[in-house]
């Protein structure tokens, strides 16, 4: 009884802190068109957003000074890619299971289904950025357009994915990793907070998933599955032209935040519905 009361109290405090932090950072938005447009540019433009992370990854991939150094780096980076796929899968599954609309959606009057009742949710008075995309999205929201992707903001898949890759680069190359991590934190994720797309808690949870899964996979890459990763690294050196082509495709996809992979999975899902379920 006492423990549950303490937990409820702690959860309440954490939620308040989360809201205050969000509103504090979000207070930068909606004041200057130029500032909001710059922030939005780095959110919407894949090259500006994730291109830097991709460049750091490539530099780390080719930047080994000795054969052993290159081997070690590539092993870490291959494990990082595996971890990134696992992280995006986990965060996607969690965000589709845990119902928590984005803060910008929660700025509206919302009723949430709880059992057999509709309960009004606490409103978060986020400021809407003045850039064209944000204003267009806000007008769409006011006309009732709510994307299903906007209903599950916890945890942040962007935070999980880019933090996993940046931390992986950091393990391979300290200098490049710091650049990637700095870009992820101060450009990609700060933009998410300023725009009211995620709360600090969403981002912290995404980061926690990234750190946990990256640690586990790096551990397995060094110990239990070390042989497999050594083999892959060896292959990447032996067939350098082919491995360069593959790594280019992978980094291209990372830089475009997996949009093409998602489109391909969407096609698979549509095919499954069409062929197996006989729909549409």
């Amino acid at each position, binding site marked *: 009884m006492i423990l549950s009361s303490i937990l409820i109290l702690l959860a309440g405090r954490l939620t308040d802190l989360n809201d205050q932090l969000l509103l504090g950072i979000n207070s930068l938005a909606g004041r200057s068109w130029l500032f909001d447009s710059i922030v939005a540019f780095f959110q919407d433009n894949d090259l500006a957003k994730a291109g830097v992370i991709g460049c750091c990854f490539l530099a780390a991939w080719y930047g080994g000074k000795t054969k052993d150094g290159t081997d070690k780096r590539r092993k870490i980076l291959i494990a990082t890619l595996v971890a990134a*796929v*696992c992280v995006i*899968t986990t965060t*996607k*599954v969690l965000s*589709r*299971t845990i*119902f928590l*609309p984005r803060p910008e*959606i929660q700025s*509206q*009057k*919302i*009723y*949430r*289904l709880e059992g*057999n*009742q*509709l309960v*009004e*949710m606490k409103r978060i008075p986020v400021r809407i950025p003045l850039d064209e995309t944000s204003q267009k999205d806000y007008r769409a*929201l*006011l*006309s*009732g*357009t*709510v994307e*299903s992707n906007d*209903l*599950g903001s916890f945890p942040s898949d962007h935070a999980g994915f880019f933090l996993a890759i940046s931390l992986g680069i950091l393990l391979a190359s300290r200098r490049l990793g710091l650049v990637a991590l700095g870009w992820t934190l101060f450009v990609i994720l700060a933009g998410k907070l300023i725009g009211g797309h995620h709360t600090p808690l969403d981002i912290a949870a995404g980061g926690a998933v990234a750190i946990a899964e990256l640690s586990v996979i790096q551990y397995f890459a060094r110990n239990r599955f070390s042989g*497999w990763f050594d083999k892959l690294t060896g292959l990447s050196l032996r067939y350098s032209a082919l491995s360069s082509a593959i790594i280019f495709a992978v980094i291209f996809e990372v830089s475009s935040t997996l949009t093409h992979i998602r489109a391909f*999975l969407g096609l*698979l*899902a549509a095919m*499954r519905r069409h062929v197996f379920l006989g729909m549409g």
Partner: protein
Amino acid sequence: MKQISIAIILCSATLLTSCKLQKEGLVVMTDDSYKASIVAANKDGIGSPDGLLVRGGRFYLADEGSKSVEMWSKTDGLKILADSNHGFQSPEDLVIDAEGNIFFTDDDVGGLWELDNRGTTRLLAGKDKGLISTEGIALAPDGSILVGDGEQHKVFRVTRDGAVTEFLGKEKGITKPESMVFDDQGNLYIADNQDNVLYLIDLKREIHKLVDRQDSFSPETIYYSKGALYISDSRNGKLYVYRPNEELRVIAAFGGQLKDVQGVTVDDLGNIYVSVQNDLKRKVGTIIEISKDQTAIAKR
């Protein structure tokens, strides 16, 4: 390698199948002056209703999930008025005349069905008279019933003795007359949720397109009350209100398991009710009331 392949397949399968994990539901009030609450759900005995009407505190449901026509009220609970043993399969939409006779359509077995005020159910006009897949239904001022057919792209007039004539032919271009209603002047509104058009057929039988293929607009059910047309949109999960010479306005948006809004009706006090098919296969449904929020109005 085998283990990696299995892991990749499992990850892909999780990503693909996770698309349906979200079971929560929400209602976003785009008009702050309204509030939302649940009137009835499965615990009250209802299945997964499509057509919905409210008269004197009683709800009449064309329950597509339970394959029955039902009446529900807070005081009396649920009463099944007719079920599939009478020969219908998928009750779609319904109207009630002044004498309390209920008429309903069925898009699976077709026809126009009558449930009279003594409780007798009969097929008033069936497939043999050309009603193949009946969708929208409207009570005409002259007492006849208009029925829309989605497969033949026509609207038929059916008299009380079951005689069927063509009211609007295929050449009029209405692909799927999903829902129909007359206003107090005798004009007929038709919702076509295949072409996503809202039509008005005036007293001279001239056709006007009031809303034509607008973004995020697919009219499912329309209901006329006190100068306003209320429109549900199951594809986009929205509830609209349309008033002549005004822009189409969204009152509420529905998401998650509440997205599939089907029927819409309004009571004498102006409260709006929508039926939601949370999960048609599992016969899960909800009736939601959207009413004026006096607190929000006072705050304004």
